[in-house]
């Protein structure tokens, strides 16, 4: 009898494994023809689904389906229509901007979107702590009629429209129903996008499912029956899932991107995104007297071999840069790119002329939670040692520790982990280099920088290029930073997807709602 039971159990196990094998394999959206679902893999779950709290970068993939923004970024890099179909500055001076809502637009719950709703959403956003909240806080709003919103800035802004595009999330309008229950915004969506978040089909922290929104104003723009964003912390697992057709797109790293080279089913895109290097915070020499001397800061820039470090740390997925912007982006200056060729002898001479012939020590804090940052800063440390400059490194194991260290003002320089950059110069250079910038923890006031920034702010948006380059030139000439590499964003996707690209002059992929399948 017992032997029979054992036999039955064995048959059961074999049957389960057979059933499993039949049910396994190509379960992903990428398999077979006529694909109508899209599955994206990301390494982290979103910190929140609330537009006022969410971090940007790849996390926008969680927001894009459910939150339509007032304006969008077209593939050629220019602003495009969104919930608003007309926009522009009012008068001169870059302080007043007007948005006209598209006719008949509704939130996903079916209620019409009015100018008053947009202002309520803006006001909620101002109170948040998201990356763009600081840009919204000084703004004032008015509504001349039910479909027009006027935004007034106390200081000139040559690129106000950008604030209403996806990467800034303030243009992702939240419905009044959502604003009534702010706590729910973190784990559900109340937008007007082409899809709605399905909490029933999702598991927070694991996968997030979006299904079509019947109230979206352009039903022809809904290309998928379902969009799923899967959280896969292990990037090697993402590659396996991409190869086996379980996911359609992932963001690669310099380590794994080479492993799909030669795979004809997979396309890889890469684009320089963020400059990595040292922010020289102590520009008045409060902690390290020498850093107050322009010659010392310039010496640091001459002392490092950017090409060698970039090759060693980022391989084929980085670009040597000596300015806080990358080729192809707003404010990139070809002249600034030539200012600091690798010349350790010149570095030594400058240090000697400044009275630091015997060297100096600079305390630097950095985030060791990003392996590339650690490698990069250690390489910089080794090269600066050759000219007598000692970097005393302090590693922060998490973001909170890094910020805490930064705010102590004990560190004369810091290293930011590469995030998503490629911002217009007006937004990119304000936090670290202007007097009121949030990254300028020592509160250094540099009249030349502030003047160049003010000129850019007031420039005519259509011809602001020269002013933007001028700002970069001033920052580089005064050596306010030690840029090393432009790090790439790497996107890897199966060839069935269409429309995946980096917009001109932008570092974020086009919205996932715009992609289609073959």
């Amino acid at each position, binding site marked *: 009898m017992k032997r029979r039971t054992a036999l039955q159990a064995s048959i059961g*196990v074999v049957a*389960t*494994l057979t*059933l*499993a*094998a*039949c*049910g*396994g*394999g*190509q*379960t*992903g959206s990428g398999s077979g023809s006529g694909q109508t679902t899209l599955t994206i893999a990301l390494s*982290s*779950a*979103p*910190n*929140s689904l609330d537009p006022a709290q969410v*971090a940007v970068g790849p996390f926008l993939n969680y927001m894009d389906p459910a939150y339509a923004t007032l304006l969008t970024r077209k593939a050629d890099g220019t602003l495009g229509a969104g919930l608003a179909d007309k926009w522009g500055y009012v008068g001169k001076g870059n302080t007043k901007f007007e948005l006209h809502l598209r006719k008949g637009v509704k939130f996903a719950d079916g209620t019409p979107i009015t100018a008053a709703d947009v202002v309520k959403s803006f006001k909620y956003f101002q109170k948040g*702590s*998201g*990356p*763009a*909240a*600081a840009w919204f806080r000084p703004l004032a709003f008015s509504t001349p009629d039910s479909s027009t919103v006027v935004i007034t800035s106390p200081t000139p802004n040559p690129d106000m429209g950008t604030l209403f595009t996806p990467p800034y999330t303030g243009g992702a309008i939240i419905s009044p129903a959502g604003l009534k229950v702010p*706590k729910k915004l*973190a*784990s559900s969506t109340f937008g007007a996008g082409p899809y709605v978040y399905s909490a029933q089909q999702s*598991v*927070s*922290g*694991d*996968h997030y499912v979006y299904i079509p929104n019947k109230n979206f104003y352009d039903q022809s723009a809904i290309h998928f029956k379902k969009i799923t964003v*899967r*959280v*896969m*912390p*292990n990037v*090697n*697992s*993402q590659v*396996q*899932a991409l*190869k*086996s057709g*379980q996911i359609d797109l992932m963001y690669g790293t310099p380590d794994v991107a080479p492993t799909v080279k030669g795979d004809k089913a997979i396309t890889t895109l890469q684009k320089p995104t963020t400059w990595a290097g040292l922010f020289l915070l102590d520009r008045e020499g409060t902690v390290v007297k020498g850093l107050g001397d322009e010659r010392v800061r310039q010496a640091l820039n001459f002392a490092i071999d950017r090409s060698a470090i970039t090759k060693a740390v980022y391989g084929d997925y980085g670009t040597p840069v000596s300015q806080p912007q990358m080729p192809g982006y707003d404010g990139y200056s070809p002249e600034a790119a030539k200012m600091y060729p690798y010349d350790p002898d010149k570095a030594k001479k400058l240090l000697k002329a400044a009275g630091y012939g015997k060297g100096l020590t600079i305390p630097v804090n950095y985030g060791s*939670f990003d392996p590339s940052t650690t490698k990069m800063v250690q390489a910089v440390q080794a090269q600066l040692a050759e000219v007598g400059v000692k970097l005393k490194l302090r590693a*922060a*194991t*998490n*973001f*909170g*520790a*890094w*910020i*805490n260290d*930064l705010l102590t003002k004990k560190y004369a320089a810091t290293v930011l982990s590469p995030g998503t950059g490629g911002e217009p110069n007006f937004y990119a250079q304000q936090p670290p280099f202007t007097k009121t910038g*949030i*990254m300028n923890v020592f509160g250094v006031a540099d009249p030349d920088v502030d003047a160049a920034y003010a000129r850019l702010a007031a420039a005519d948006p259509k011809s602001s290029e020269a002013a933007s380059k001028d700002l970069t030139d001033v920052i580089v000439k005064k050596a306010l930073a030690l840029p090393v590499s432009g790090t790439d964003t790497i996107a890897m996707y199966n060839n069935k997807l269409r429309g995946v690209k980096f917009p001109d002059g932008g570092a974020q992929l086009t919205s996932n709602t715009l992609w289609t399948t073959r």
Partner: protein
Amino acid sequence: MFPIILRRLALSIPLLVIVSAITFLLESFVPGDPARTVLGINATQEQYDALKAAMHLDQPVAVQYWLYLRDILRGDLGSSLFTGESVLGLIGQRLPVTLALVIGGTVLASLVGVVLGVYSATRGRVSRRLFDIVSLLGSAVPNFWIALLLVAVFAVKFAFFPATGYTPFAESPGQWAAGLVLPVVSLSISGVAFISKVTRDAMLSTLSLDHIRTLRASGIRPFSIVWKHALRGCGLPVVTTIGLMMITFIPGTILVENVFTLPGLGTTVVDATNQHDLPVVQGLTITFTVMVIVVNLLVDVLYSLLNPKVRTE
């Protein structure tokens, strides 16, 4: 039996308090500021102060721990700093995945390990040597490497099983099982080596006992002697080993879940640690401790069932 269970349960309460206190204390030494981590660099000082007060971070560590214990007694493990989700709800969602792995791995490793161990004990010297080599390899090779190998062969090359992901049983039993096959196999490999070795040694020792010789002399079939009489004699060491193995499987799931991207407690603890999400780390530590206590309790119960002497002591 019940007094044994009650005694064990009573002892587990101070254990839980000690573990949670140590975790809390260690977390307080971790550099960084959870409120800063949550808010980022753009937050105003007012926002920062408000969140710090809401999280009790402005209180001494002892007070923070007391408030935490008080909440636990009310059945509240707190909320994730990042998503605002209840930690209890988070654990409830992810526990079935980890349990499926641990139980599946234990059953598979026990079945295969016992069969292999008995087979090896009843075969010749060459087979035993071969078994020793295979067993050594099985216990020495890390399970994450086995997992990557299994994925490359059975998921990517032959597409028999999915490379990653988990489907709830209620949604599709077939896909649920499909998603678990490779993770369970990779988790159980070291367990198979461990159990088979202990079973083999116990079986060899049992087979040399006098009462087995008597059974052989009485003409009982060798199959029956090995699988019915001798195997029962191996019960105590094998059950103890299975219990120990199951306990090692609990942290083992962290690696396996990460390789296969399963939404279990293992992936959650890694994410929470990276994000400095202290309430989640704390809640998961308590959950892992409870799991170890439960496994130990099960082993004790089985032990006392197999060995009446334990019950009388």
